[in-house]
């Protein structure tokens, strides 16, 4: 059995500029932020990012690492508009494939199932078709003869997700209310990297939690990173909620200033900078 534990920096060392990266979570919820921070420490760039977008997209956009984004939205949830994403879009900083939330899911499912596309009743009649001239439609071969969008597979070079627990082999467990699409991101990727709040023994995983909390299977995982608070400032229920105060700080501080104070060092430096800021706030 292979021990797949590694550091966030070792994950990033396996990635390359120009790759297509899927990032799990949803909006500002359970985002693999420790892995994103590691990515920001590297010189990786020219990325195609596939994400139900939150601050992961905002930070990578602010740092100029995105060549192309595939998304249905980018939001901080409690702050509806992601300021850095907005700024990047309004300055035409990168290419965008804007698709519907459902189309996005079917794109991942197609990739996970090794299908070139899946038909979906979404997009037709909307400007998603206008802004993605490459999207094709498909006609049902059965009597109904209906037309659907042939949502192309969103195949990923690598996926980054964050869960509550994992073992050293890559079995990942979520303990919150929603799995989001993290298993699907891993299955749609050639290599998947799972960060977690805590690495535990395999037997520990199902000691108190039900078996269906075992979301990610080790056969689709390449690396496991122990990253307590690794979703910060997004929530990782029930381990921690969203750090709303810090998210507000992120959303209202000029990027260069925020990056200098919080992202200049490693993950330990980040945690200590956050603690210092929190102490300043009283």
């Amino acid at each position: 059995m292979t021990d797949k534990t590694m550091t966030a920096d070792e994950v990033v060392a396996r990635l390359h500029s120009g790759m297509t990266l899927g990032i799990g979570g949803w909006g500002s919820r359970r985002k693999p932020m420790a892995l994103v921070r590691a990515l920001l420490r590297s010189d990786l760039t020219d990325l195609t990012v596939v994400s139900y977008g939150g601050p992961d997209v905002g930070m990578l956009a602010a740092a100029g690492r995105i060549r192309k984004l595939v998304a249905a939205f980018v939001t901080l949830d409690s702050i509806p508009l992601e300021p850095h994403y907005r700024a990047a879009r309004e300055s035409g900083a990168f290419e965008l494939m804007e698709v519907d939330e459902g189309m996005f899911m079917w794109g991942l499912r197609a990739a996970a199932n090794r299908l070139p596309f899946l038909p979906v009743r979404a997009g037709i009649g909307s400007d998603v078709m206008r802004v993605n001239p490459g999207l094709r439609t498909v006609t049902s071969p059965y009597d109904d003869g209906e037309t659907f969008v042939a949502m192309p597979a969103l195949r990923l070079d690598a996926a980054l997700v964050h869960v509550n627990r994992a073992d050293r082999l890559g079995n990942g467990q979520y303990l919150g209310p929603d799995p989001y699409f993290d298993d699907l991101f891993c299955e749609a990727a050639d290599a998947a990297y799972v960060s977690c709040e805590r690495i535990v023994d395999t037997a520990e995983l199902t000691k108190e939690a039900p078996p269906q909390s075992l979301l990610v299977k080790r056969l689709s995982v390449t690396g496991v990173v122990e990253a307590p608070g690794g979703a910060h400032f997004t929530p990782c229920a029930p381990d921690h909620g969203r750090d709303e105060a810090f998210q507000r700080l992120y959303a209202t501080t000029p990027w260069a200033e925020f990056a200098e104070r919080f992202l200049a060092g490693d993950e330990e430096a980040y945690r200590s900078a956050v603690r210092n800021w929190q102490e300043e706030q009283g």
Partner: protein
Amino acid sequence: MDVSRRDVPRMDVRRSEYCVIACAEAWRDAGEILASPMGLIPSVGARLARLTFAPDLLLTDGEAMLVRPDGTPEGWLPYRQHLALVSGGRRHVMMGASQIDRYGNQNISCVGDWARPKRQLLGVRGAPINTLNNPTSYWIPRHSRRVFVEKVDMVCGVGYDRVAEHPGTARFHRIPRVVSDLGVFDFATPDRSMRLASLHPGVSVEQVREATGFELTVPDEVPSTREPTPDELRLIREVIDPADTRLREVSS
């Protein structure tokens, strides 16, 4: 006689409360489906409908749980199941709109040229899949010419003129109503363009015309949005929204 009703003093009904009633009415006779309200007043409206005339409605906690109005979980609906439920059609969503046109095309993606927007907004989110699969209504807390426009910059939610070009794919398309702080609107016209269906008390037709950037169909006689019953007022004020969150969207 219902004793509790006697205890409710007959206070003036506020505009925000007419908006709650107008939103709640979207789910009348909806049956056993999911109500997906987006925004504060639609959320109050959906819970009001569930507690009164639409008791079979399902509601979420805004995350992955289906809950009773008192918050008791009764089911699980993570995003992956929610998206499948949308496709299955057993849902009536009330979305917001940054722009909406006379045929009900809705935009929440961006203002200006999509390639390099003047103002980036949320993105299309689920508007395309919603509008093609389940009834989709809209809630607009500030009725103005910036929202009610001749032509939206990016069609996210699909309107009636667009679906006319795709009758097969769009066979489940329906926009039951648009509710704003001024009135209720529908598409019960021969060309499925927007019609003024009711005015909230205190609002004039001229006010609506002035705040609308396209030609509205206005019937000869425009009804008023209905009054809340004393019990509905009590539920809104004391049970569902005692913190007056509705005033954050409509200030009166």
